[in-house]
């Protein structure tokens, strides 16, 4: 914590979404994500606190990427609430990918409540340098 230049963190309210037709009524939240792209791959980082790898579902279908994370109740049933500032629920977010992804090489890594999803671009989607021949 010697770094004095780093800024203070601000509170971000969890953003609740309305997904129609739930069998189990519980709030659903949108996880905060970072998405960045290099020439070879797209990387997605998502904050999913409390989600275990068993409860995380990543689905890529027709270039629509769906993240669903379930939370298991972690409170003992005999606990009484004294102060509740945040609510806990499922995570859900969908993205449409504009690039062609090599589905076999997708890597997902979940650690400390952060998902790191690496989506390598398919060969034909990578930019190719075209050589111009003089003549």
């Amino acid at each position, binding site marked *: *914590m010697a*770094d004095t230049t*780093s*800024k*203070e*963190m*601000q*509170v*971000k*309210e969890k953003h609740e979404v309305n997904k129609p037709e739930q069998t189990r009524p519980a709030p659903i939240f949108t996880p*905060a*994500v*970072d*998405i*960045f*792209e*290099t*020439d070879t791959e797209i*990387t997605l*980082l998502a*904050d*999913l*606190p*409390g*989600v*275990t790898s068993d409860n995380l579902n990543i689905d890529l279908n027709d270039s629509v990427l769906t993240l669903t994370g379930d939370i298991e109740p*972690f*409170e*003992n049933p*005999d*606990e*009484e*609430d*004294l*102060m*509740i*500032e*945040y*609510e806990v629920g499922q995570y859900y977010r969908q993205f449409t990918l504009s690039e062609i992804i090599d589905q076999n090489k997708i890597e997902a890594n*979940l650690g*400390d*409540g*952060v998902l790191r999803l690496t989506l390598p671009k398919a060969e034909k989607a990578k930019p190719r340098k075209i050589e111009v021949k003089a003549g």
Partner: protein
Amino acid sequence: MITSRFFDFPTLGWRSHFDELDRMRQQIDRLMNDTERQTFRVPGTGVFPLLNLTEDKDNYYLRAELPGVKSDDLEINATNSNISISGERKLPEENKGARFHRRERDSGRFSRAITLPGKIDSDKISASLTNGMLTVTIPKAESAKPRQIQIH
């Protein structure tokens, strides 16, 4: 109220607007009362991280969502019945050539203190950080625990 007094010209229609607002407020109040939620949700102190505090017979449980925070970067201190949580969330430097499409995750320092409603046994506090969820288990002091009185 002063505003409604000074701007209370019927021709300007101010009054009706205020009445409308009042009516809406009453409706919202009624809705809130109807739901009868057991826990009162604190609108938020605006200080990161947001905390949930629960209790059972023996312990207080303080929970916070801290995804991506390493336990080495987290510091928890307890004095009397105050608990303070401070630390830093560091996001690893990404490839320089990467183009960002979305950047919603924050990094930075944080520090928060909370006073517990009862006496605690500060020697026996334990904390765990799993899957980005911090749980601090704070045992209540013997004198603060509820006691069952035997009737002879």
